[in-house]
Structure formats: structure tokens, C-alpha cells
């Protein structure tokens, strides 16, 4: 399938622009008219993080005339392993401003528009309205469904990519010409069932592998060249070094782009995706202690005045980076599959913790369900412990 160009050509390229883009201009499929289309194009990148970094840098270098950046976060040292649009000197700065500076350093002919807000149902339509195409570099399900639904309602193409550890996926969702994200995945997973990159990790360079597919598809759509990745899912495996494709069908029952859509306006995406499951929220209610409570309990245990078992439910690699003294490691998976339950002591109170408190709340629901009714979990997890109790220890 080929599609007509998304953007009309700009009236002209300056002498400087011709010199800058000469390697594009001599490709017959791009030529002057293709480059003028890129100059006239307005592309919005949601997120200036892992995927957003290479996407913005290559879109800028390619000569896309207007680049929008939606980002409200600040640069953290742990971002720099993969978010190559930011550098050491940017730690603590606004990611949006840092990304803008890098874009203008690469190509001063780009007009950058910053949207330093958290994208939500109240602002997404207004922000998207100005742009020809949306590139998704977000890291959570709620924003992805929000971006998808807004793109369907506004009839705009949505260039999507997703990464985890050594695996990446990419596609172009465009309900006018093919399926949307909900046609591929009608509903998000329940909270806690699919780990995020913050929990599971990601190979830094994977961002470039998937981000470059996204930029390639954006350029093809803007200039109207080649076969767009509409109706196809590209699946990349870095360890095997394979790219495989599977078909994505337009679902006639799709909630937003189907024959009788039930989603005809934006919904509450946080509620749709949940940040914590209902059972975990119920378990954590009245059974959450603070890191200061935990410190007092550990001190009392050292004096022989209290007894309990402190269980860290993170993964071994995380435990190796930083741990709370006295904690033993039993990863969350061993609770979900039930194998950890038989080994738990019945004569001691169980205290659970993880990185920030989400996973330990999920495990708390399982443990309470198995009859350990006085179990508790530590709000804020090991990160809160380091901040408040042992600030000399590393965080991640």
C-alpha cells in the first residue's frame, strides 16, 4: 500500500538549505519536492526520553520544519544511558528545554515548539490540532491510549514504538487508512502484570533501533514515499538480531475506530489503565507503613523487642544495586505463581517492600489472600528508604 504525501511542499529551499540537504535532494524519490514537504511539515513528539531522543534528533537533521515536544520531566542521571538528546550538563534541567537546545544545535532551521505539560484529556486535542503527524515516545499505557484515541478522533497518523529489555515493536496507526492501537491491543494489561522499563530495564541502544524505524516511517508519510508500516507490526529482537512482521487487522469491533464505536470522545485514561490494581489498593489500605516506621521496627528487632520478616520483592539485579539492611529477596513472580507462599513463616509478621511500593502492594494482596492478614508493605519502597534513612546509598 502506498499513500499520498501528507504535506504540501514549501514554496522554496534557500541556498543554505539546498547545501545542507544535498544528500537527500539527490535521492530521486525525495528530491526537491520531498525536501520541501519536510520543510513544511509539523511533527509532534510526545516525550523527549528513550524513543523521543533519537526520533527528535533525526527528524531535526532530516529538515522537518516544525518540531513540537511534549515533556514535563527533568533530566535525571539515570536517563543518560539511553536518552542521547540530553547530556551531563543537562542533569536537573527541563527535558523539553534540553531537547530544544540539542535540536537547534543539529539544525538551526527547525522551529521548535515546547509543550511543557503532562498530556491529558483536557489539553491533548488542542496541542495535537496544529500537527500533521504524532510520534509516540511515551513510557506508559495511559498516555498511549490517550494519544491513540486523540489521533483517531483528529484523523491523524500515529507513529508508535515500544521497547522492553532487548525487544522492540513499531507500527503506524492511522484509522483513516488502517488499524489503530486499540485494534491491536483492545485493553491495557491490569496494573502489575506487565513490568515497565523502570522495573525491567532496557538496553539503551534499543531506543535508536526503534526510534529510527519511527523516524523512517514519519518521513515516508510526510513525503509520500514507499510502503508505510500501516497494518503491520514490526517486531525487533536485538539478541537474535531479527526483524519479524505480523499483520494488524482493522477490528470492526474496535471501541474507537470500529463500525459502532463506544469511545466517541476522550475518556479518563488513568482510570482506564489504573496505576495499581483494585485488589492491591484494597490490600494496601490500612496496611502501609512508612520507611521511618520500618526503621523503628528494625531497631526494635535488633534490640530483641520485635520480630518480623522483611521481604524485598524486586528482581535480583535490583537487589544488587541497593537494598535495605536485613531484607531478604523473594521476587514478585514467586508470589504470583504461588511458589513462595509455602516457605513463609506463620509465626512472624510479614513486611514487604519493592522499589517504590507498587509491586509490594500487588504481593501484599496475594499474601493477605493466602491468610497472612497482618502483613504490611512499605510505602515508597527502597527509594524512600534511601532518601530518608540512608542518603549515602545509590538510587536507580
Amino acid at each position, binding site marked *: 500500500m502506498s499513500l499520498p504525501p501528507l504535506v504540501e511542499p514549501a514554496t522554496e529551499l534557500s541556498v543554505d538549505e539546498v547545501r545542507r540537504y544535498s544528500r537527500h535532494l539527490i535521492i530521486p524519490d525525495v528530491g526537491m519536492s520531498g525536501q520541501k514537504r519536510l520543510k513544511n511539515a509539523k511533527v509532534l513528539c510526545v516525550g523527549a526520553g528513550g524513543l523521543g531522543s533519537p526520533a527528535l534528533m533525526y527528524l531535526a537533521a532530516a529538515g522537518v520544519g516544525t518540531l513540537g515536544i511534549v515533556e514535563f520531566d527533568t533530566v535525571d542521571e539515570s536517563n543518560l544511558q539511553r536518552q542521547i538528546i540530553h547530556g551531563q550538563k543537562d542533569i536537573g534541567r527541563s527535558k523539553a528545554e534540553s531537547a530544544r537546545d540539542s535540536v537547534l544545535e543539529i539544525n538551526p532551521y527547525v522551529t521548535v515548539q515546547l509543550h511543557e505539560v503532562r498530556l491529558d484529556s483536557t489539553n491533548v486535542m488542542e496541542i495535537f490540532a496544529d500537527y500533521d503527524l504524532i510520534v509516540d515516545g511515551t513510557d506508559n499505557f495511559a498516555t498511549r491510549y490517550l494519544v491513540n484515541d486523540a489521533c483517531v478522533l483528529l484523523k491523524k497518523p500515529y507513529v508508535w514504538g*515500544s521497547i522492553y*529489555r532487548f525487544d522492540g515493536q513499531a507500527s503506524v496507526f492511522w484509522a483513516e487508512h488502517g488499524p489503530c492501537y486499540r485494534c491491536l491491543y483492545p485493553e491495557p494489561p491490569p496494573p502489575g502484570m506487565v513490568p515497565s522499563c523502570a522495573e525491567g530495564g532496557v538496553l539503551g541502544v534499543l531506543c535508536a533501533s526503534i526510534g529510527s524505524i519511527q523516524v523512517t516511517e514519519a518521513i515516508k508519510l510526510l513525503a509520500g514515499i514507499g510502503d508505510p508500516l500501516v497494518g503491520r507490526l514490526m*517486531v525487533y529482537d536485538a539478541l537474535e538480531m531479527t526483524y519479524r512482521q505480523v499483520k494488524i487487522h482493522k477490528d470492526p469491533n474496535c471501541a474507537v475506530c470500529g463500525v459502532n464505536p463506544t469511545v466517541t470522545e476522550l475518556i479518563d485514561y488513568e482510570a482506564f489503565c489504573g496505576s495499581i490494581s483494585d485488589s492491591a489498593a484494597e490490600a494496601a489500605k490500612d496496611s502501609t507503613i512508612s520507611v521511618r516506621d520500618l526503621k523503628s521496627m528494625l531497631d526494635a528487632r535488633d534490640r530483641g523487642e520485635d520480630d518480623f520478616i522483611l521481604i524485598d520483592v524486586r528482581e535480583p539485579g535490583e537487589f544488587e544495586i541497593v537494598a535495605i539492611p536485613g531484607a531478604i529477596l523473594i521476587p514478585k513472580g514467586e508470589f504470583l505463581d504461588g511458589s513462595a507462599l509455602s516457605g513463609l513463616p506463620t509465626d512472624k509478621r510479614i513486611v514487604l517492600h519493592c522499589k517504590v511500593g507498587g509491586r509490594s502492594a500487588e504481593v501484599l494482596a496475594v499474601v493477605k489472600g493466602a491468610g497472612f492478614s497482618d502483613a504490611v508493605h512499605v510505602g515508597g519502597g527502597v527509594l524512600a528508604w534511601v532518601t530518608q534513612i540512608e542518603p549515602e546509598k545509590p538510587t536507580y
Partner: protein
Amino acid sequence: MTIEVRIPTILRPYTAGEKLVSAKGATLQEVLNDLELNYPGMGERLIDESGLRRFINIYINDEDVRFLAGLQSAIGENDSITILPAVAGG
């Protein structure tokens, strides 16, 4: 018949880290039953009371089974199965 199933990263704890496993069955349902037999706990991650979980896609070769016959989809001699859950990292 025995066919090959690709296990996604997040389900590999059930297969002791194996990415490619063998399973038997003439339909997808039978293949998933066989997987559950050999890798207890995996079935529940793929299926709930109402069928295939909505954030899990299973492909026979390059076709999404939701657009074939779902769990009743027939499995042929040279088919391979790929399980792809939704991930949101970026």
C-alpha cells in the same frame, strides 16, 4: 502434532528462560493446555474466564488468532506460534 511456540520476555520465568518451546495440539486451545501442563501458571497469564486476555496477542505464523477462530484456531504441521503481550516502555 508438535509445533514451536515463541515465548515473550515477560513470560520466560515460566519456561526457565527458554525463548522457544515445543507444544502439542491440533487447536490453539490444545496447545495452550499443553503449555500449562509443562509450564504451570502460564495459562492463567494468557487466558481468563472470558477467553484470551485482551492485552495478549497470539499469532499463528503472522496472523492474529482473534481474526482467525480464536482459541479454536486450527494448528497445521508447519505452523509456528508467537505470543506477544502489550508493552509500553519508551
